[in-house]
């Protein structure tokens, strides 16, 4: 009997068609939602490239679009890392630029003269739609279409993914997540069907991923891990063999074609897992082959032992090679995921990046909202029917949550998994409560325990007699996926929901939650994740929005008022922006930690040099500036309007990094007060007050307050009434809200004096008369 009546005069095929139509429409709407919810940034501000790295990607893309691919490949950028220069072609993942380059040329071939900037800005939203689709396909493999739709909807609007893919954040992650999901989908497909075709597809998308994002290492380790676990579970099949081998062979070969990756897949530990599993699979396959032919028990034992030992030997060989140095050990950034204290101790450049901090629970909830608790439930649901592909999601879940906990930015890799799992869970809930069939009450007397058995569902569909309820069963089960309630042989339903109200309550509750989820996502996206940290927004007392545009103001000032080949020194955060917006030569840029794995000694020393210049007194910094032909020095100062991301707050990192290279010239403790506080007011330590960074930040700051209390709104400290003085630099430009301050480096004094005394003379100071240098020694 049914809780509510279904139209019974419709043929199942109609249901199916209608369902598929609904599905297509739903997917279309989801894509629309995904794209439009990422356009807040453009609506609130304007169509502009966001924060830091995207500016480089944008610049590189322009080169690609104008010069063509080969020029891009051989692009040597003399304006970065001056005077070392940067071989860009060999040190980036070209996937992103290539993608938008292709789109650009395509559109122009269709006579659609679209500006490259708009393509870059809108690339991420576009790909988010594709991600939704890929997630749909992936989840479909996990459960069924309805779950797939849910997953697509989740990934479409979940903030955890939006945070890296709003319009304008033109970064590798923008396309990488789509590639990630599609590679996984292809892998699962290959695993299920055992077709080398899908294995190859997976390999090709893996290649695309490698070309697009450094995070490809995640795939490189996930898939082998999956295969390995399957082996341990004794689930070796020829399908696994085919899928894995085709993926690994083709994927590795193609990934080695990316210049930046080169021979890493065979030389570094990150990739060794994949290689090892590949070898192991060969052994196991061989063993299986033998077993199928040989019957003798002892021989099989022998075989088993030999397989194990062979595996062990392989492992040992790898360890040895690593030890010998043939295989590079894990790189610092990778290692820092396991030993969480590692980065801070040994690679301050990496630790200094805010995205590399661990994640507190509020940001989890912020990014995932109700998925945080739907997700474990979904994982449990996957455990109920533990098919091979489910194992994959489960492993992914464990890994993803751990990594996301260690590093904020890895929340991104967790998000898809969360969406998939919770979609599976939620769709099961909905299935259970949408299903109109009610169990038979009289069964209660028997009280037989009916633990759900996993294949039951499938068996039922085949075994169900096509009569009355059975027919509807079919329809319902086609509608609501594979999980039709358990029955005994006589076709009587055992488990199910009684009554309509219960259904109503639960479904209503679920609907409400989903609604809340949507509201939450929209709010987070529009408020937290849509500001292009190039343009800041503050709200006036009357609530209206006030745009703070100091960065562009300053960069355009540089572009307009300085020589084309002027060298601008700043802390590396602003290197890409200066290059992108001001088009001037920079000493260091964000490439510092992007691939600090292979940061050459030269660059490491270079960044430390800048750190030293910033944290030393003027007269020590000046020769450094001259040696590097620095014309202008740019500092970010938030003290006036309380912009907390300024250089004084980053200053300690400069000190640390400098200390790493000049331990006896720069020492971190000297920059603290004796009480160990970090102060900028009149109690600030001597080293602090004399450092170039401090002087440049607070130069003439007191004048603003006209003798009143000089207040730093970021540090909330009062500064001395007397602002620091500069002898070796001239203030060249200070932006409206004092966020950006640019100083010009003076040239040497024409009389060969040091500039301090030169200034003293110019201001009419008398210097004490000196005695002639004594040539003879007095004999006593």
């Amino acid at each position, binding site marked *: 009997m049914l809780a509510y009546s279904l139209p019974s005069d419709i043929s199942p095929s109609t249901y199916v068609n209608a369902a598929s139509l609904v599905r297509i429409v739903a997917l279309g709407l989801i894509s629309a939602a995904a794209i439009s919810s990422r356009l807040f940034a453009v609506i609130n501000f304007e169509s502009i490239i966001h924060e830091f790295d995207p500016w480089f990607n944008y610049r590189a893309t322009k080169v690609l679009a104008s010069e063509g691919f080969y020029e891009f490949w051989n692009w040597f950028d*003399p304006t970065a890392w001056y005077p070392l220069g940067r071989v860009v072609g060999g040190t980036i993942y070209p996937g992103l630029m290539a993608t938008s380059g292709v789109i650009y040329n395509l559109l122009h071939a269709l006579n659609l003269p679209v500006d490259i900037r708009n393509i870059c800005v809108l690339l991420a939203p576009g790909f988010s739609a594709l991600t939704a689709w890929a997630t749909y396909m992936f989840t479909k493999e996990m459960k069924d279409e309805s779950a797939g739709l849910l997953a697509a909807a989740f990934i479409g609007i979940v903030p955890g993914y939006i945070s890296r893919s709003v319009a304008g954040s033109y970064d590798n992650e923008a396309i990488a997540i789509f590639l990630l999901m599609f590679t996984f989908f292809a892998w699962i497909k290959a695993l299920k069907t055992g077709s080398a075709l899908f294995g190859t597809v997976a390999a090709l998308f893996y290649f695309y991923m490698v070309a697009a994002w450094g995070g490809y290492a995640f795939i490189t380790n996930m898939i082998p891990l999956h295969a390995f676990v399957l082996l341990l579970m004794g689930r070796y099949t020829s399908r696994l063999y085919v899928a894995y081998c085709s993926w690994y062979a083709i994927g590795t070969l193609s990934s080695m074609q990316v210049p930046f990756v080169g021979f890493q897949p065979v030389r570094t530990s990150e990739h060794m897992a994949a290689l090892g599993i590949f070898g192991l699979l060969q052994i196991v396959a061989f063993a299986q082959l033998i077993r199928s032919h040989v019957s003798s028990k002892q021989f099989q034992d022998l075989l088993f032992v030999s397989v194990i030992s062979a595996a062990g030997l392989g492992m040992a060989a790898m360890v040895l090679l690593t030890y010998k140095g043939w295989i590079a050990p894990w790189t610092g950034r990778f290692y820092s995921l396991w030993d969480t204290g590692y980065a801070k101790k040994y690679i301050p450049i990496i630790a200094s990046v805010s995205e590399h901090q661990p994640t507190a629970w509020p940001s989890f909830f912020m990014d995932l909202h109700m998925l945080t608790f739907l997700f474990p439930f979904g994982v449990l649901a996957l455990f109920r029917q533990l098919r091979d592909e489910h194992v994959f999601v489960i492993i992914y879940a464990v890994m993803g949550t751990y990594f996301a906990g260690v590093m904020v930015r890895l929340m991104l890799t967790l998000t898809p998994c969360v969406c998939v799992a919770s979609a599976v869970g939620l769709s099961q809930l909905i299935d259970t409560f949408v299903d109109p069939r009610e169990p038979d009450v009289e069964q209660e007397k028997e009280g037989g325990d009916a633990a759900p058995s996993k294949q039951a569902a499938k068996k039922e569909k085949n075994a169900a007699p096509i009569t009355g309820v059975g027919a509807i069963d079919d329809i319902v089960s086609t509608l609501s996926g594979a999980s039709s309630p358990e029955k005994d042989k006589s076709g009587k339903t055992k488990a199910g929901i009684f009554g309509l109200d219960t259904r109503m309550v639960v479904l209503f509750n679920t609907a409400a939650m989903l609604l809340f989820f949507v509201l939450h996502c929209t709010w987070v996206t529009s408020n937290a994740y849509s500001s292009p940290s190039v343009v800041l927004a503050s709200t006036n007392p009357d609530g209206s929005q006030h745009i703070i545009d100091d960065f562009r103001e300053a960069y355009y000032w540089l572009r307009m008022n300085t020589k084309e*080949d002027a060298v601008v020194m700043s802390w590396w955060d602003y290197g890409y922006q200066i290059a992108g917006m001001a088009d001037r030569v920079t000493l260091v840029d964000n490439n510092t930690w992007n691939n600090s794995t292979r940061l050459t000694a030269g660059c490491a020393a270079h960044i430390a040099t800048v750190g030293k210049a910033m944290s030393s007194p003027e007269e020590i910094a000046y020769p450094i500036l001259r040696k590097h032909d620095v014309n202008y020095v740019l500092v970010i100062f938030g003290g006036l309007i309380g912009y907390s991301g300024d250089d004084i707050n980053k200053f300690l990192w400069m000190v640390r990094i400098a200390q790493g290279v000049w331990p006896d010239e720069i020492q971190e403790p000297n920059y603290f007060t004796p009480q160990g506080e970090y102060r900028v007011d009149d109690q600030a330590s001597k080293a602090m007050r004399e450092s170039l960074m401090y002087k440049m930040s607070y130069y003439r700051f007191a004048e603003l307050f006209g003798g009143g209390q000089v207040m730093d709104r970021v540090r909330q400290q009062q500064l001395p009434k007397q602002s620091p003085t500069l002898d070796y630099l001239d203030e060249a430009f200070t932006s409206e809200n004092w966020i950006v301050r640019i100083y010009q480096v003076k040239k040497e004094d024409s*009389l060969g004096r040091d500039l301090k005394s030169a200034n003293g003379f110019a201001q009419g100071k008398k210097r004490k008369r000196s005695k002639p240098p004594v040539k003879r020694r007095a004999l006593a």
Partner: protein
Amino acid sequence: MFRIWRVLLLVLSLAILSYARSSTGSSVLVVLDPSLSKDNYSIFFKGLEEQGYELTFRAPKDVAPAIIQDGIASFAHVILFTPETKTYAKDITPQSLVDLLSQNTNVILALGSKQTPLTSLASEFSLILPPPGTPLISHFPERDTPATVIPIPVSSSSPALTSGLAPVWYSGIPFALGNNPLLVPFLNAPAESFAADTTEDSGADALVDAAEKGGEGLWAGKDMSVVTGFQTVDGGRVLFVGGVELFNDEFAKKEVTKGVRSGNAQFAREMAAWTFQESLVLRIDDSAHHKVNETEPRDKYTTNDRIVYTTHISKYNPATNAWEPFSGLTDVQLEFTMLDPHIRTALPPVPSKPGEYSVTFRVPDRHGVFKFVVDYKRKGWTHLHSSTTVPVVPPRHDEYPRFLSAAWPYYVGAISTSAGFVLFSVLWLAGDDRDQRKKKGVKAE
């Protein structure tokens, strides 16, 4: 009125081109202390005018003509014969004079034994003056002049002075030189001379009690200088003279020994020539670089390219008032620097071509933004500096060797694998199909 006079003078001097001229201009302002009369220095000034300079005279207190008008120097050269002057019009201050130099104006500055506003200037040029009121005295050689009037033999070490110059009469203060590389000492005090206040006439006593202290704090000996030039980084030249009498007619006419007139006149003339940028003035006309057996400069070079760097240097010839190619420099160096010089090599003159200096070298195997730097600094000569920036890039993707003998194992591996694959498929297609799994496995590889 006065301006017209100057214009006339200008026209006149233009008319007579045989006159030599400074390389920076011919207008000279002479600030003359009222106590010194112009006629006592007629030889020197006449000499300058004959050279084609237009002299304009003013007293220190006059307001016009100002040496700096609205921050622009109004004269090419300035002579300050004001050793004792205490007060100046407000356009003449130590600061304004330094400002002049930075605008490439040349200055001749006569110091005196009194403390004047300009005394503080000396220390900026790292000259160390003795205490006020202590002129240079020497009791050797035996002579009839007072001890403060000393004949100083000219040691013709500097190329600015013609050798074999007769000793010059000198009366004034000595000064010690700091260790500033921009100083160009021309005339040093005699070894046995020293600075002492002559009011109580016992320079000897001063010597004695100084000798007690082992010569400590005694301004004496040949390390003291009396005439010193200074060339600023931007090329302005200034001459410090310890006593203005060096230039006057009396000393010029005076005989050092029987029948030998003093070298003062010519010495003063040559000093003025150096200071007013007539002598020892060089410039780099142009510098070019290109790959070997190419002619046009590249906008970037590849590592290990062989490139040619060429530069042309010419010297100012006051006689013809023109720049002439100059191959006389044998010690010019070229540096190819990125942070530090990666290559430092001699830049020899090309024998056949006058004024051309050229060198060929191999770019180091290191990519980066390099600079060709020519930096020629010699005492007395104009400093030559030229710096050309050029990026050095690694080879393009298609500039590496295509076929590596070292890669044979890979070639063999690839070929054999594909051959084996073809062979296998052929065999497979030929045979009947058993054992699905194996085929797939191999195919996947």
